[in-house]
């Protein structure tokens, strides 16, 4: 009995000492945390630099004239089927989300539109891409990873983006963090986003997968660069040899 009382007393004493020690540490941490937060708030450089974005360049007049000429030429050569998809050189698409989307949807729409109409991208087919509220020639989707798989389990996975039918589906996880292979190679997130939009849209345009033509070469945009660069340099834009579309008859 005496031994039990002694043990209880010792435990209480140790607990008491422990509590005092924990409290003292908490106070110290609070003070240093306060000092840290006050000094971190005095940093102005991160705020300034995060506000600097790559500018949206308007095509110079001479380049726009070249693109317009290409569009006119493409319209002239389009088949009846592709004419339905391309109206006066414009391919329409609508944008939607599937599942729980935490990424900035406005940013997704803006960057996707910029990518599709970039003079280095599929606009080189001589078409421009216009977002419409509904009924576009294809539907661009920003999707929660699991919803990509649920959409078409036999073709799509929760790990990657996918294209089936008129759906061009961008996997939110890849949109937010690119892929291991891409990041390991030092690729930028912005370039990955250009690449994934171009790659999946490329499927819709009628392209299959391609492979790296040799070490140090620019990867074709239709190479599965998210998975493995195969020795190629990452490249978000279609190569000259990829500028065709069976879907649009170009």
């Amino acid at each position, binding site marked *: 009995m005496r031994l039990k009382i002694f043990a209880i007393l010792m435990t209480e004493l140790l607990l008491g000492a422990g509590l005092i020690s924990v409290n003292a540490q908490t106070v110290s941490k609070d003070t*240093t945390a306060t000092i840290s937060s006050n*000094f971190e708030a005095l940093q102005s*450089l*991160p705020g*300034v630099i995060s506000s*600097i974005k790559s500018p949206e360049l308007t095509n*110079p007049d001479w*380049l726009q004239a070249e693109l317009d000429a290409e569009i006119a030429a493409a319209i002239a050569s389009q088949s009846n089927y592709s004419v339905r998809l391309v109206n006066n050189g414009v391919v329409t698409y609508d944008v939607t989300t599937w599942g729980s989307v935490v990424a900035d949807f406005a940013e997704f729409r803006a960057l996707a539109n910029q990518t599709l109409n970039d003079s280095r991208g599929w606009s080189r087919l001589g078409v421009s891409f216009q977002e419409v509220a509904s009924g576009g020639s294809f539907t661009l989707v920003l999707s929660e990873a699991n919803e990509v798989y649920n959409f078409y389990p036999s073709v799509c996975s929760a790990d990657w983006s996918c294209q089936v039918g008129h759906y061009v589906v961008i996997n939110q996880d890849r949109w937010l963090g690119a892929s291991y292979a891409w990041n390991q190679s030092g690729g930028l997130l912005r370039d990955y986003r250009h690449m994934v939009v171009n790659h999946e849209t490329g499927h819709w345009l009628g392209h299959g997968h391609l492979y790296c033509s040799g070490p140090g070469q620019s990867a074709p945009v239709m190479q599965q660069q998210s998975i493995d660069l195969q020795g190629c340099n990452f490249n978000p834009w279609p190569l000259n040899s990829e500028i065709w579309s069976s879907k649009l008859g170009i």
Partner: protein
Amino acid sequence: MLIDKIKNHRIASNLRNHRRTTIILMFSLLFLALVIGGYFLSKQIWNDYEISLNQRFDSAKSDTDEAILSNSTDKLANIVQVQVSLTEAIKTYCEVNSLIKWQTIISQYSDKVEACEQKKELFSGFLVDLGELTGYLKAEQQLATIISLAKTKTDENNQADKWAEIEAFWRQAVTDASKLTDTDQFTAIKTLAVTNLAKMADTWQKLSSANLAENRQQYEEAHTNLDQIYPLLTEISTSSELQVKSLIKDVNSSYEKI
């Protein structure tokens, strides 16, 4: 008659002896009073020395706390001001009154001075760390202003015929950043900033040249480079954040010791 003479002589002698004794006694008492008074006076001065020192260190700490925690718009300038004035003031903190300085041969008092010097050394260490941090933050603010100016001018002139001017804005940023004062803490960030800002200027120059030459291939290459060069600027802020974290860690560490 003779007896009377002897009596008078004895009385005079007694009186003289008595006066001498009185004088010796008085001087002894005076000396004793001076010794006792001196003892208590020096004890009081040493007590005041200790109290005054504690008050000075407490006050110095509370001045720095107040500057760090204030919501002033000129907060960094205030912290710098406090740091500079305390660095000067602390030099005299452990000085002993010249009246009692000789008493430092006694260990009881020399311990007090030594304890003060130790405290002063810790506080000086904290002020040095604080100075390095505030010095870095000041330089970083100047760099941020230079980059911000180039960014604003770029945004205001983002048309094809102004791209040559945009190159000039970024070249100016390179020149201005190069002139920032070097310190052990800031030089690495400054070098990185100058390198990346120069790349930015080079890329705008290529874009401008491709546009003037109406060379589509060069234009598209330069456009791609431009998209790649902007994210490089985040290297500067990321490195700077790491540097600030390290300097804050030093300040926190020395703050905990004072």
